[in-house]
């Protein structure tokens, strides 16, 4: 039986979770104060994911960088691949929140979208 201690990142409360696993399967989750904590614990020990936020170079806009995020969480091990997928990208203003900057980034099936409006100048 394997036991792992985690801090939940579902919300700022940061509950301390204890997960028990048997043969790669979760057998119990304790310490959470809501369902999200339970979901997070199960996911984190089997296939952890993250949302990645960064910025992309903008031309013709009021400011030179647009903040972006992965539209959904992506596998944790692909974080740096996601970063690589925007390293050479340039977008032209105007940009609106939600605009797709890179579709299916790093083959995750998840788009990278803009999180800021940037008017053109």
């Amino acid at each position: 039986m394997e036991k792992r201690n985690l801090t939940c990142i579902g919300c700022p409360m940061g509950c301390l979770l204890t997960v028990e696993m048997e043969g790669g399967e979760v057998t119990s989750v304790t310490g959470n104060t809501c369902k999200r904590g339970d979901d997070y614990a199960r996911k984190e020990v089997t296939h952890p994911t993250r949302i990645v936020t960064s910025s992309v170079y903008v031309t013709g806009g009021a400011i030179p960088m647009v903040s972006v995020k992965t539209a959904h969480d992506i596998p944790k091990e692909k974080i740096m691949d996601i970063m690589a997928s925007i390293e050479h990208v340039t977008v032209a203003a105007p940009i609106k929140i939600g605009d797709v900057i890179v579709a299916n980034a790093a083959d995750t099936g998840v788009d990278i979208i803009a999180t800021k409006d940037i008017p053109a100048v």
Partner: protein
Amino acid sequence: MSSYDIVIIGGGPAGLAAAAAAKREGVDSILILERDTQLGGILNQCIHNGFGLHTFKEELTGPEYAQRFIDQVEELKIEYKLNTMVMDITPTKEITAMNRTDGLFHIQAKSIILAMGCRERSRGALNIPGYRPAGIYSAGTAQRLVNIEGFMPGREVVILGSGDIGLIMARRMTLEGAKVKVVAELMPYSGGLKRNIVQCLDDFGIPLKLSHTVVDIKGKERLEGITLAAVDGKGKPIPGTEEEYTCDTLLLSCGLIPENEISRSIGVDMEPVTSGPIVNESLETSIEGVFACGNVLHVHDLVDFVSEEAATAGRNAAHYVQAGGTLGETGTEIPIQAVDGVRYTVPKKIHVNRMADEQIVRFRVGAVYKNCYVSAYLNDERIIHRKRQIMAPGEMEEIKLKKEQLAAFDGLTNITVKIEEA
């Protein structure tokens, strides 16, 4: 000289929420004065997510959260000026401001809402000895350089201070290809949210050294390295524990200080513990009709509470103006005392007849408390005794006082908020 019913100093999350709330309360003559090129304040550079869980039940990035409020301000057709710096405000609420297009100008306000946010403690204020090379930045300045200007401040980073900004920048710099060697924290506990320790340090294998500080800085032109040392219970470096780290960048996340130059120039009473204005139940300062909210009042951890607080200030400013420059009968002023582990409360005083039915009192504790009680007393009678598994200085707390209960209490002279052991 132009005049407005409500002038809001600062167009960040506090100013925006206050403006929207005031407008919805029925006041039309509102002006926001913002010094940056865009509304949104510090949120514009907080490109990470974690904002809005309470307000919108969604996790948003900083710019997205800001846009929700900017949209409200636009929809409500609230006036604002960008690139505008407020130079001075008189006790009679005459504002002197300046920008390129309008030049130097004056505005007479019936009511003012202070929402100027806060700034970071610098290396100089921390008195860290050593050289003064390039490469030493407060975490927020580095954040601006990376997220708004598109520059890398450096490639080999040491971070002093495990507050949220330091943790966020540890991840940010790593994602952009820098090597963050260590995050050092003076206190024996981290000042930031636990989720940030996980997502910003653990995820990237960045070590966190609690009870450590920077004791020397090397490099004559550009930073070359720093010396970390362990500290004792009083925060003093312990000789013999020195460790050298080579680095070209030192980011400092060692405390936020409300930006109160303007508050001081108007002459409002200040609270030394928070470095922000003292306010009453209506978030009104010692000058009638001047309100304060957000980080300029006391530094917050969650922007959702900033928006909530600011909306209260906005509504109260509106009521003040609508009633012809008053919040109604003063009645008795009841002070709130912060003792025994509670460092301060906002508000610091209550006029019972002016308070909301449910009055939020926000506070911070001075140390980490486990399995303790938050207690509130009306005179000597305890009315709140709530068990808390854990409380830390890095997480703002709140209690709610009921107007009904306070009004019914005969001979109320003071309220006390304190931490009591199990």
